[in-house]
């Protein structure tokens, strides 16, 4: 039989899952267990020595989690994946694998506010130094490269502005510098953009957002593209050098093109500890089964609402890459032809106060600090997610004080428009 590639929706339902060998259960069971019995002492030793595939302890891996990992790896076109307790945990594990104290990485300025904080403050205390570059000025990435640069980090669709990053151009800078390109693909999901197809070496996600999709479970994931040669120049000793805790095993040599994912599991997750719970893995897996359907609806609603807002007399500007005429529309057409996502910002002619007023008057949109829920969400980034940045940094990150961010859900778009309409009507 000729091998053929199933489509995205088939992978979203099937990849990684198989009826349970013992019970025949068709849905992936929740393996709510901390640990797993060994067959005998030799089996235990083989597992601990990384000589056998299998389960030891849920901080390192869990069968429900493994299905989630294989599914996301398949959807992204990667060789393997590692799920973590949150998107932030995924980032800590990735950078701990790549950087030593005193090393640097380059990050796009337009990022989720939580990532900006993590990179600026928490990472600084580990001695990992971030150099910021501007995705609207591609040369700024090249200028930021130094001999200590170990990675480049960008978001495919940037939060909060919904701007599209030129992944291929930045991948070329990374290749030239001999460092991996890490892409946070949370806002796009692999349904809209597959960064590995455009040159990413590592993809990270907050599974909490569109992949899980229902606003009920935290999770993060690291996908290994299997594209980066970790053995070159001894730049990444965690992968290329003998590991004393595993009796001198070299991870890259042993695990080939999924070595990064294995290293993140058997060194990063094992030692840092941010394991995802089996129950969260199950809920996120269930969410992923409907990812294609939800993303279609999210994008259709977002475009309709963005177009409606553009025409509204109280609205000063709408920043949605899916709008023709938007600064990022050409990039959106190239990288995300199925839709430009469902998170975007807009500003009101009445400025900051009108934005605050709008948020308080909305009845269907929920005012909270999350995105990628079935429900439509609204927030004022300058006073919340990006509040710890100074004004200049807020503007550079796409969270100017007069902007309101929407994450459009999968309700009926007529009801969402009616809610915005009543909230924008003066004196009602």
């Amino acid at each position: 039989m000729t091998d053929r590639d199933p489509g995205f929706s088939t992978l979203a339902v099937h990849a990684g899952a198989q009826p349970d060998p013992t019970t025949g259960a068709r849905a992936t069971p929740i393996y709510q267990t901390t640990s797993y019995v060994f067959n005998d002492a030799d089996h235990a030793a083989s597992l601990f020595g990384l000589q056998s595939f299998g389960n030891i302890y849920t901080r390192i891996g869990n069968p429900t989690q493994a299905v989630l990992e294989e599914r996301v790896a398949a959807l992204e076109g990667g060789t393997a994946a590692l799920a973590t307790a949150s998107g932030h945990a995924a980032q800590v594990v990735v950078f701990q694998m790549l950087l030593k104290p005193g090393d640097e990485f380059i990050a796009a300025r337009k990022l989720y506010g939580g990532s900006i904080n993590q990179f600026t403050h928490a990472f600084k205390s580990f001695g990992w130094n971030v150099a910021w570059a501007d995705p609207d000025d591609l040369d700024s990435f090249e200028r930021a490269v130094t001999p200590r640069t170990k990675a480049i980090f960008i978001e495919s669709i940037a939060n909060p502005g919904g701007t599209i990053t030129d992944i291929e151009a930045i991948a070329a800078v990374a290749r030239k510098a001999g460092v991996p390109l890490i892409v946070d693909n949370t806002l796009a999901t692999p349904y809209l953009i597959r960064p590995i197809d455009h040159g990413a070496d590592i993809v990270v996600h907050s599974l909490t957002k569109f992949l899980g999709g229902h606003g009920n479970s935290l999770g993060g994931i690291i996908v290994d593209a299997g594209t980066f040669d970790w053995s070159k120049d001894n730049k990444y000793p965690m992968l290329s050098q003998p590991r004393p805790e595993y009796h001198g095993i070299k991870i890259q040599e042993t695990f080939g093109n999924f070595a990064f994912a294995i290293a993140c599991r058997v060194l990063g997750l094992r030692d840092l500890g941010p394991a995802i719970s089996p129950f969260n893995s199950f809920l996120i897996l269930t969410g992923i089964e409907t990812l294609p359907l939800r993303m279609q609806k999210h994008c259709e609603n977002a475009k309709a609402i963005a177009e409606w807002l553009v025409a509204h007399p109280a609205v000063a500007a709408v920043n949605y890459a899916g709008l023709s005429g938007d600064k990022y529309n050409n990039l959106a057409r190239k990288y995300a032809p199925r839709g430009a996502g469902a998170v975007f910002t807009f500003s009101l002619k009445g400025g900051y106060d009108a934005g605050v007023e709008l948020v308080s008057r909305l009845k269907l949109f929920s005012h909270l600090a999350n995105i990628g829920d079935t429900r439509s969400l609204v927030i004022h980034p300058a006073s919340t997610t990006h509040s710890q940045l100074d004004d200049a940094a807020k503007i550079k990150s796409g969270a100017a004080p007069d902007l309101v961010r929407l994450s459009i859900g999968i309700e009926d778009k007529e009801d969402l428009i009616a809610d915005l309409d009543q909230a924008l009507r003066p004196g009602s």
Partner: protein
Amino acid sequence: MNHDSYDDDYIRGILNGVKSIAMVGASPVNVRPSYFAFKYLAQRGYDMIPVNPGHVGKSLLGKPFVASLRDIDRPVDMVDIFRNSSNIMPAVDEALKMTPLPKVIWMQLGARDDAAAEKAEAAGMKVVMNRCPKIEYGRLSSEISWMGVNSRTLSSKRAPMPTQGMRLSLGRTSLSGGATAAADRAAKNRTDPS
């Protein structure tokens, strides 16, 4: 024969068909990849023969080392070469002198010698390069999925009961080539920088 990627059926056919495997470069050091692969394949029922002139007189998991392929006293279905790309040709030349001729030459992950492959294929042998039989067995049995690895296979059938590790399953549908496109392209670019 395209050696940049292999159909799963090709790999599955080899791993299902061979019974005895001589491993050239097998190491008794239990942190070396060759040791892992040797032990894994032995546990899954293959008749394993360790070949390494530096360890004659010792044995690996109860199997005595031989100095070279010439010293093996029984038919060998597959020669698995755990050597660098530059040391492949002498092992293939030696395999070509064996009677009966082995059916398969397998070069380990990271090893590739197209001239040696051509020579072996001209003699009627099947060739696999730059792959690990342990990883391929783990992938095709879906056992490797326990580590979050993309097995590139799907199945709606009940999985076999795992005993001493999973057994090779024929009931899974393979995605194209069992390969991951981006990783394969990167590997090709490394071997062929043009």
